[in-house]
């Protein structure tokens, strides 16, 4: 085995220090080393987006990031968005609009949607659809997901915690 590398991550506001193989994918670090299993894996090729988290405030596919690359970074996962008692507006909208069925793509979809709303707080339907091009859902046909994101965009606080694009 390759030499392990120490990695410090701030995940949902909590500091973690772990030693990892360089090849450990960020998604596996989050799921297996930190026990946050809300982030999922649905493909091998960066297509499905189920693994989407925010890395230093930007939505990324955590199956295509090495944990070592995230050393020193802050990560937000679905568990950091809101709890059952205090839902994020996007979570609330997904619930209200039946924006999920099996729920497997949902954490990634919500994290991608949060990234979308950070960049574009008042999107059109077409912009929402384009903005979710990196996330696959097999259950919903996207209809209610798109509706949920549009509804969330109209509620306050939907974009809290996201960072702007900076050059």
């Amino acid at each position: 085995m390759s030499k392990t590398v120490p990695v410090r991550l701030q995940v949902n506001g909590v500091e973690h220090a772990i030693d990892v193989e360089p090849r450990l994918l960020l998604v596996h670090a989050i799921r297996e080393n930190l026990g946050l299993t809300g982030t999922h894996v649905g493909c091998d090729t960066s297509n499905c987006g189920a693994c989407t988290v925010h890395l230093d405030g930007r939505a990324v596919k955590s199956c295509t990031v090495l944990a070592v690359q995230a050393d020193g970074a802050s990560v937000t996962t679905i568990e950091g968005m809101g709890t059952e008692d205090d839902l994020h507006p996007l979570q609330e909208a997904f619930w209200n609009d039946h924006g999920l069925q099996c729920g497997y793509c949902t954490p990634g979809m919500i994290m991608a949607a949060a990234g979308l709303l950070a960049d574009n707080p008042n999107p059109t339907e077409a912009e929402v659809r384009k903005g979710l091009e990196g996330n696959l859902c097999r259950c919903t046909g996207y209809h209610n997901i798109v509706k949920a994101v549009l509804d969330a965009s109209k509620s306050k606080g939907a974009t809290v915690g996201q960072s702007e694009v900076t050059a």
Partner: protein
Amino acid sequence: MSATTTGNGTYVGQSLRRKEDPRLITGQGSYVDDVNLPGQLWAAWVRSPEAHAKITSIDTSAAKERPGVVAVYTNADLDMEAGLPMAWVPPGVEVNTPDHWVLAKDAVKHVGDPVALVVGTSRYSVVDAAEDVIVEYDPLPVVTDPEAAIAGGPFVHEQFGTNKVCDWSLGGGDLEKGFAEADVILERRIVNHRMAGAAIEPRGVLAQHRAGKLTVWSSTQVPHFLRLFLTILLGIPEDRVRVIAPEVGGGFGSKLNIYAEEVGCAWASIKLRRPVKWIETRSEGMMVTHHGRDQINYVKIGAKRDGTLTAWHTRILADLGAYQMLLTPLIPPLSAFVMSGVYNTPAVQTDVTGVMTNKFATDAIRGAGRPEATHTIEVMMDQLAQELGMDGLELRRKNFIPPFENGHETAMGIVYDSGNYVAALDKLLEHIDPAEVRQEAEGLREKGVYRGIGFSTYTEICGNAPSRAVGPSAFGLQGGGWESATVRVHASGSVTLYTGTSPHGQGHETGFAQIVADRLGIDPSMVEVIHGDTDTGPWGLDTYGSRSLAVGGEAAARTAKKVADKATQIVAHQLEAAPEDIELRDGKWSVRGSPDRGMTLAEVAGAAYIPENLPEGMEPGLDEQTFYDPENFVFPFGAHACVVDIDAETGKVKVVRWVAVDDCGPAINPLLIDGQVHGGITHGIGQALYERIEYDESGQLVTGTFVDYALPTAAELPSYETDRTETRSPVNTLGVKGVGEAGTIAATPAVLNAVLDALRPLGVTYIDMPLSPMRIWEAIQDAKGKAGAPA
């Protein structure tokens, strides 16, 4: 004697938000990969890169030396007496079914065929070790084209001397007479290509054998089936096997099977006395999670000049792949059951031939046989309309079975439960005016955009299944079709419903709770629905074939009614009234006319569990069970319209509008119905335009990842317009029909008909799916070539 349950209708029919969702939107759901056990090992599979080859040697020594590797198994190590099951033995029909071992024995028959199982201590290191297993192959001739395979060798399984799996037929009416009476006879070869279920959660299994009990967590639609077959294959008594389907991230039929990986991991966990886990990668899933469709329909239909159908004959050649999984050869026959569609065709005959090729097995994928039938039927209706110079909708109306409420027997002897096809179409046309679309099309054409509209009026057969119709002595399924439910009222008045169905996204926890809540006068939040665990509820037959509501929901309703009946007896006894005078109103059982005197469910439960004052001879407790076996299938139906825009220069198709009217009987929860329809339509659009499983001539899978297997994204699709008609099914007390597959069954012909409608001005008359840009562009070029060719 039952009380009047005026609780009825309080929750049923409402678009309640789902009870499932709070955990799923916060990342608290537990899918199989979220479950981990102390001492857990990981499994990886060494898979064949060859489509057909003899295994000449397997060297596992290097892999075994890898740090962390605990065991490497090959077929020689397996001490199972039987292979993976296939559950169809149709009376009087010979089915050539090869052995299908958990690990390939002597030869591999498709790319991905598992050759060795590596078990070790870490998820990552077993993948490395699997690469160290050295397998030598002696390649054998490969066949991937079903028409070539049925015409002769090379044989996938030499011992049969043929690639044919079976011939199976269903028909009724006088076909010869029908064709003799026809003014027009139309023939087509219609390809329904292979596709994947592509649930976003890949499959996975975790098995533990501890203290004499095998517990298996699997991402499966069929935990009860899996338990039964683990018992049979591993020789463990069924009571010592527990299968848990935890949160399951979609199935669409692809998790309706007994897979090598499930059996192999369970077997290894027993051998190694440690938990063994395997999580499928998407690349594996594309290879070895069963595919669907892959039929060629050679269809011949006859009609009078006025459009009246006189005969309908379909020969189906179904590419079943190299092995037969649980239901593989019985899926194409399901096409036959609905080959009448919504039409009054007097003679209908379907002849199915299954054929083996060096591909992975096909089996049930969303719709399972009915999408293929509906595609053929609805595409042919438009083809016939063109031939006759008739409007496609007029032709359909001409042949619709008139509205019926309680049974219509088709030419084949299939009895549809209820239908009102004209009402669904009329309602559809309230939402979309074809003339308007055609007018828009005129305006767009000069910009190079070809707009077309396509329709599909469908029915399908679901609610699997009446045991007498599908069982061993009838259709030949080695099983029944009933479903179970247990309703347990707890002493404090909250309720647990145990259902034998096993949902994976459909929302049973909400819909079933609504059904039970209404019958017991409580809020649905008081009803916990437990599913997918063979140790908690009664035997069940799981979830597939749009059966859950019509069979499992009905079982729940009947069980809740049993509880309500007992509650009525208890209340009558306690209030010293006659049971027939007791009614359930506003959450209380009370004497009709005296709403003040009454008991809530909690009070009834108290009386039942502290049984000081129960009617003479009544057992204590408030806990009932039902095994419900339906008397017939149910037949949802509807009408869909699709509008496409085609860039004629590039051939790219975009679906710009979709209107759907579906009838699945009275709605339990309209929100859930819409969700099923949206997803179903998308699955059909996906097949029609984007998705295909493709093998090259050497049997290599060329669409092996989500890069090449193109599921549509939000960016490719429109929002959908949905509406419903409600025609009660006479089959069950809820009046409901299934809706999980309806959208998919309806969708593909609507897309193809729309595309052909759009391209008609360019002279294109027919194209097969998938309607890729290149295929459309080529069709346009061909049509231009023909138009330009000298006569």
